[in-house]
C-alpha cells in the first residue's frame, strides 16, 4: 500500500515539475545572450554609497564566456562583485524553472515579469525576478536574491533597440557600514554613537556607463 502511495506521489511531483516550463521569451533571450562569445568594453563607474566618497572612475572590462570577467584600470577602482554579469550567463548557468508573474508597466513600456528559481544546488541564488522586454528580446531589470550575499538589483538601459548589452547599468546592493579600527582613526574623526546604534546594512548603488563595445559572436 505504502509503495503505491509513494509511486503515486512521485508521479504527481514529476507531472507538476514537467508542467513548470521555462518561459519561451527567456529562452529566446538566453539564446541571444549565448551567442556572445566575448566582449570588451570601456566602463565609467560612479559609486553612490553614503559613507564612501569616490570620484568617477574608469576601467576596461573583458568578458569571455564561462571565464571570470577581467578588469584593468590605471586608477584604484571598486568593482562590484555582483551585477557585472550583463550576459546573465551566471544566472542561467544551472538548471532552473520559471514562474510567470504577468506584466508590469514601467516608463511607458510593458514588460513581462518572471521568477527564475534554480533547481540545481550549485546555483548561488535562491530566486530572481526578471523584467523582460519581449519586443526587443532583452532583460531590462533583475532582482536577484543570493544565498550568501543578500539581494541586489540591476536596472539596465540600452543604446538602441538592436543592442543586446546595456549602455547604462544601475546596480543596487546592500552594504554594511565600515567598522574602522580605532587606531586608524584620525583625530578629526567623529564617532556618532546614535548613528552606530542604528547602524544596519545600507543600500549602495553603482552606476556603470558602458561604451565602446567590441562584441564577438559565436561562429565569427
Amino acid at each position: 500500500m505504502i509503495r503505491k502511495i509513494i509511486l503515486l506521489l512521485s508521479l504527481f511531483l514529476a507531472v507538476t515539475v514537467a508542467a513548470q516550463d521555462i518561459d519561451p521569451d527567456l529562452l529566446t533571450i538566453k539564446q541571444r545572450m549565448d551567442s556572445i562569445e566575448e566582449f570588451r568594453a570601456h566602463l565609467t563607474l560612479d559609486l553612490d554609497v553614503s559613507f564612501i566618497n569616490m570620484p568617477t572612475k574608469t576601467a576596461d572590462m573583458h568578458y569571455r564566456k564561462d571565464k571570470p570577467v577581467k578588469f584593468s584600470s590605471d586608477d584604484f577602482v571598486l568593482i562590484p562583485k555582483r551585477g557585472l554579469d550583463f550576459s546573465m550567463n551566471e544566472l542561467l548557468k544551472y538548471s532552473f524553472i520559471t514562474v510567470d508573474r504577468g506584466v508590469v508597466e514601467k516608463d511607458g513600456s510593458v514588460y513581462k515579469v518572471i521568477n527564475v528559481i534554480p533547481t540545481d544546488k550549485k546555483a548561488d541564488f535562491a530566486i530572481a525576478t526578471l523584467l523582460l522586454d519581449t519586443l526587443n528580446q532583452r532583460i531590462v531589470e533583475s532582482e536577484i536574491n543570493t544565498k550568501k550575499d543578500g539581494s541586489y538589483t540591476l536596472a539596465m538601459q540600452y543604446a538602441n533597440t538592436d543592442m543586446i548589452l546595456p549602455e547604462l547599468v544601475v546596480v543596487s546592493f546592500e552594504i554594511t557600514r565600515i567598522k574602522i579600527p580605532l587606531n586608524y582613526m584620525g583625530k578629526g574623526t567623529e564617532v556618532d554613537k546614535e548613528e552606530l546604534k542604528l547602524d544596519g546594512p545600507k543600500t549602495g548603488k553603482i552606476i556603470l556607463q558602458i561604451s565602446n563595445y567590441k562584441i564577438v559572436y559565436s561562429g565569427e
Partner: protein
Amino acid sequence: MRALIAAEIYKLLRQGKTYFALAAIFLIEGVILISAYYQGSNIIDILLDNLKQSFYFEGNLLNGNLLIYLILNTLWFHVPLILMIIISGILTSEYKDGTIQTVMLQPVSKWKFLLSKYIVAIIFTLIVVFFLALTSFGLSYSIFGFGDLIVYLDTLNFFSSSEAFYRLSWSFASGAVSMVFFSIVSLTLAVIFKEATKTWIIAAFFLILSNLLLKVDFGNYWVNRLFFVKLNDTWQYLFYTEIDWSGIYWNNLLLIIYSMIFIAFGLYLFNKKDIG
C-alpha cells in the same frame, strides 16, 4: 637685529640636540616607511574588510600618497613635541650655561634678544616642516609610487593621485602654521620656567592637553570656534571631500594671532623679569 638673528641661528646650529632631534624626526619617518613596506597591506585590508564582500579591488592603495598621509599624521604629536624640545632649548640652555647674563651685559635690548629667538624659532620650524614634506614626498613616491589616496574622516574618502598631491601639499603648509604655534608656545614657556626639564614637561603637557581638548565640546559656539586648541587640526580639513577653504584661512589666521599674542606675552615677561 640682523646680527642677533644670525647669532641665534649660529647657536641653534651649534647645539648637538638640534641634530639629535632632527634625526629623531627623520627616524620616525623611516620607521613609518619601513613598517608600511612590510605591513602596510594589512592596514588596507582591515580598512576595506567590509567592502570586500561587495567589491573587487583593482589597483593599489598602498602607495606614496598614503605613506605621505601617514607621515603627515606625525604633526599631531611627534613633530610638535620634538620641535618644542629644540626650540625651548635655545633659551633654557642660555639660562643653564649662564650665557644670557653675558649677553645682557652687552648693549643688547632684552626684547630684541628674545624677539630674535622667536624669529629663529619660526624660521627653523618652517624649515623642518618643509624638509619633512620634501623627504616624505621624495621617499614615499620613489619607494611606493603614485596612486589614489584613501582617508577615513567620518566617511571613506578617495582622492586621485594628482588631487592627493595637491591636498597633501596644502596640508603640510597648514600644518606648518600649527607647528609654528607650538614652537612659539614652547619658547614662551622657557621664558616662564627657565629650566630645561621643567619646560619640556610643561611643553609636553601643553601639547597633550591641546590634543585632548580638541575633541571636547565646550558647549559654546564661539569657544569651540575660537579657542586655540580647536584650531590645531586645520590641516586635516584638506581631506574632507569638499575643502572648507574659508575655515582653513580663518583658523590659520587665528593661530597666527594666537602666536603673536604668545610672543607679546613672552616679550613682556622677559622684559619684566630679572635675568638670573
